[in-house]
């Protein structure tokens, strides 16, 4: 049985936990470096990327986490988690983050909470449309060469993959559909 870590600092951690448990994974809240040795992959959940980024630095977890991902620990970032993964941030490029995925992201680009929305996405390789909840969502403005787009919405990529890194600007964990979590565990 695979054990999937969820970065356990802030945000909608329990929702990912519940999606993963539904598909038969063990879960672990990752709070310190030693937790990284006990997991097969890690999810960076939705929440506030500035708060997570700062606390990653303060707690000393940032460097070990970055190293693990650079060395191939499979990672799935949703919303704020995608911001943490982005190499380039439009606006505040100084914001603390992991920064390993070759994407340019703009925070809150879809607007404030009044612009949050629910839709269905066609995902490459998925038989059924995937329900997706966008909440104050970050937008992928451009992708590097090694990045594959798995789904788009209104002309922008919203689900992308680069080797063992997967990132979504939406929240699969806020729906009952577990297909994307299953896809991630199959990357491991």
């Amino acid at each position, binding site marked *: 049985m695979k054990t999937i870590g969820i970065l356990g600092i802030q*945000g909608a951690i329990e929702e990912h936990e519940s999606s993963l448990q539904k598909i038969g994974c063990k879960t672990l809240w990752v709070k310190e470096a030693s937790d990284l040795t006990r997991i097969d992959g890690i999810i960076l959940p939705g929440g506030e990327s*500035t708060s997570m980024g700062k606390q990653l630095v303060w707690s000393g977890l940032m460097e070990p986490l970055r190293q693990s991902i650079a060395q191939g620990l499979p990672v799935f970032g949703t919303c704020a988690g995608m911001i943490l993964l982005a190499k380039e941030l439009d606006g505040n490029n100084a914001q603390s983050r992991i920064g390993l995925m070759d994407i340019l992201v703009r925070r809150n680009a879809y607007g404030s909470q*009044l612009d949050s929305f629910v839709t269905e996405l066609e995902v490459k390789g998925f038989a059924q449309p995937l329900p997706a909840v966008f909440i*104050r969502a970050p937008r992928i403005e451009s992708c590097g060469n090694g990045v594959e787009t798995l789904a788009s919405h209104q002309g922008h990529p919203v689900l992308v993959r680069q080797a063992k890194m997967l990132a979504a600007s939406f929240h699969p964990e806020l729906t009952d559909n577990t297909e994307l979590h299953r896809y991630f565990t199959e990357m491991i």
Partner: protein
Amino acid sequence: MTTHMQNDADWKVKLGLAEMLKNGVIMDVTNVEQAKIAEDAGAIAVMALERVPSDIRAQGGVARMSDPKMIMEIKQAVSIPVMAKCRIGHFAEAQILQALGIDFIDESEVLTPADDEFHINKHDFKIPFVCGCRNLGEALRRIGEGAALIRTKGEAGTGNIVEAVRHMRALMAGIHRLQACGKEELMTEAKNLGAPYDLVCYVAEHGKLPVPNFSAGGVATPADAALMRQLGAESVFVGSGIFKSSNPKKVAKAIVEATTNYMDAGKLAKLSEDLGEPMHGIDVRQLDEKHLFANRGW
């Protein structure tokens, strides 16, 4: 989309933002400088208001929605979600706040109530609402009206955690009680709680509220935040406790880290060190019943 599907989608994104705010700290701020301090300290959202609760308490008079200009200045200064307060029942203030395009409205007992009988019908709005409660019945009435997030009230502006503890314990005891009930008991429970039957059934089945459950009103130290988290709060609101302390930057960061590491007493000890003078605070027993904010709303 049918109306039902649109309502469903609206509810999903309201509740979704509330879920994203879990495991964090929301801070009261009265100007741009404080908002930036809050963001730098790792706050997950700020509550923009003209006076923190302890000043509202000290100055008296009618407390109303803040000046939209001040709210917008704060919205432009930070990248994290911005909340603002309207008076209980004052749906016109809520309409104005929604028009500003902020992220969350607090229908708050800290402001002077506009209606002593009815709360706002929050289903009418696209923007999510947070409301206070002192017990399970009050929480479920607010959720029934459309609140996407609940916070226990505590007693704002006192720097005294005792009321926050009382309300969280009452709420959790109410939830545990329903879990132990047989199905045939639930309608009577709903009647006694004054709460919608379907929500009572939800709580009995799931052992939690159908929306996230935060704590407010009296948090002044990292230990207070850890206490409320251990009692069941998924996040904490901090009002006067930060900017009425002698070292707001340090206290703000310490409360954020304490909220994340609320089970780690070793870390909490370190975070509690050398924070300077906390907010002075008020013994709630010295307050007249009529001065308690928590008794506003029903």
